[in-house]
């Protein structure tokens, strides 16, 4: 039975890997790779956020703040102070983990939905600091970011690479790197969900009082998952900064936090593959609606509302149920 379950878990991951590998067959210019890389980075971010929102039922309205801290920490330290990207990214994650623990721990000891308030305020503070400390962050104009490198191997959209005699551009390399990171993010998230820690998190959502009487220290687990989701955002923020090569304070803005939450809610709370779909839809939508750019926030708000009303479980779980129902009906007809 356990083996069956393991196989089922891996099946989703394998399907995702196949999609990541085969998708470039439909790409015919660098822009497609660029967009797909962005989607993968944001998808990995919301896979982490979903642990907090979808599984533990806690709302964060400041996750773009963590994303922004990761991005700017990497940008400033590698650019201005010449640190190496990979260790910098890890130090940024530790800083964000401490920040999340400091904000989350006292707040999550209270009963009720205070986390959303606290994260809302925290997100604003981070955005204001990034905007105002121009000497460090370039202020509203943004700042350039050095290319990413792993063990001396530089990853830049402008470079050309060759592997096993195949020549490819930096945009392709970035796409596969981001795709790989997304797979790792999903693997780790799924591991957490299907574990004692995962059950403790889901029980906080299901029945907090039941969780407490069987010994779950619910405020500790809420803080823990808040930190984990913040670290996801920070790491992906760093990656995004190196990928895009130029970042602005918009990354850390309240609007971005709402976009992240909308990805989770639209795709399907408590569904890892659902939130990836949410990231895909919300990243593609602005491309389709390029003419209505000033209405973007309104569109996201509308999507959030309509999802809540018509598909409270989100896009992916709703589709899954529909498919399962159709399958059942078909087998009934045959029988």
């Amino acid at each position: 039975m356990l083996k069956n379950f393991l196989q089922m878990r891996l099946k989703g991951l394998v399907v995702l890997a196949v999609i990541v590998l085969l998708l470039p067959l439909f790409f015919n210019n660098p822009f497609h790779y660029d967009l797909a890389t962005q989607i993968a980075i944001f998808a990995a971010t919301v896979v982490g956020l979903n642990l907090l929102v979808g599984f533990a039922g806690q709302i964060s309205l400041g996750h773009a703040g963590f994303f922004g801290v990761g991005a700017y920490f990497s940008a400033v330290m590698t650019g201005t102070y010449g640190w190496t990207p990979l260790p910098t990214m890890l130090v940024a994650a530790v800083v964000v983990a401490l920040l999340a623990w400091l904000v989350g721990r006292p707040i999550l000891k209270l009963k009720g939905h205070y986390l959303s308030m606290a994260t809302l305020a925290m997100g604003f503070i981070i955005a204001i600091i990034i905007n105002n400390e121009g000497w460090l962050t370039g202020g509203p104009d943004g700042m350039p970011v050095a290319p990413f490198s792993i063990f001396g191997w530089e990853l830049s959209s402008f470079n050309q690479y060759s592997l096993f005699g195949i020549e490819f551009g930096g945009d392709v390399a970035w796409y596969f790197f981001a795709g790989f990171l997304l797979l790792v993010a999903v693997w780790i998230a799924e591991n957490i969900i299907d574990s004692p820690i995962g059950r403790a998190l889901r029980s906080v959502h299901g029945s907090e009082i039941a969780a407490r009487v069987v010994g779950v220290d619910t405020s500790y687990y809420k803080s823990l998952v808040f930190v984990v989701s913040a670290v996801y955002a920070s790491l992906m923020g760093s990656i995004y900064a190196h990928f895009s090569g130029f970042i602005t304070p918009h990354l850390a803005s309240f609007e971005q936090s709402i976009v992240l939450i909308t990805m989770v809610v639209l795709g399907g709370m408590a569904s890892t593959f659902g939130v990836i779909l949410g990231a895909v839809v919300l990243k593609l939508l602005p491309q389709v609606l390029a003419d209505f750019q000033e209405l973007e926030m309104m569109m996201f708000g509308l999507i959030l509302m309509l999802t809540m009303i018509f598909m409270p479980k989100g896009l992916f779980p709703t589709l899954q149920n529909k498919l399962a129902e159709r399958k059942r009906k078909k087998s009934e007809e045959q029988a």
Partner: protein
Amino acid sequence: MTALIEVTGLSKTFGGVHAVEALSFSVDEGQIYSVIGPNGAGKTTLFNLITGIYTPTQGEIKLKGEGVVGLEPNQLAERGMCRTFQQMQICMNMTALENVMLGRHLQLKSSLLTTMLRLPSLLKDEEDCRDHAIELMKFVGCGEYLETEASAMSYGALKRLEIARALASNPKIVLLDEPAAGLNGTETAALEELIKKIAAQGITVVLVEHDMKLVMGISDRLLVLNYGRKLAEGTPEEIRNNPDVIAAYLGG
């Protein structure tokens, strides 16, 4: 016999209402101890006080001689106390089996890193936990629901599932709040057998229950509450013949 739970001078007021007032009693190890009384007598409040959900206005609660007033429910669980609820508390976002596995939370100590990488030690623990949970589900008679989503189960089955989850934490004492409420005759008979089996394992059972036949049949001792105060305490025989109890509750 040593007292597992010792309650002295326990009071709880909500505004001006005395839900529980100056209550003292003790539960010995290995007993089936029942709390009865009319609706609103303070039975569930008493349970919530003992299990750390409410903080008493006054009084002392000792578990194995240790004062436990002010401890959180999860800290009490670490000391071997677990309970079920009158309004069932099942995690409807999980399968039946996962609900019971949740009950083993305190026995599972994998670190976050072990969990994230799904190291072999975690898999071994999870498999043991799973086996234990399956055994418990069979023990309470939920064997056919292993992979069922909790939200798809019947009321009676969920009641038994909640007991399985409580037992999964290896408790020394379980408090069952109206386990027979809403059950039919057959289910109640099965429940009676189940409670006896639990007690036979050396687990102390404290019971709040309205079903007199059930309570009188299985209890070692009973506590009768009325308006938050102790009306009587004793063996089923003593309670049955107590004139105060007859007047106030059994209605002659």
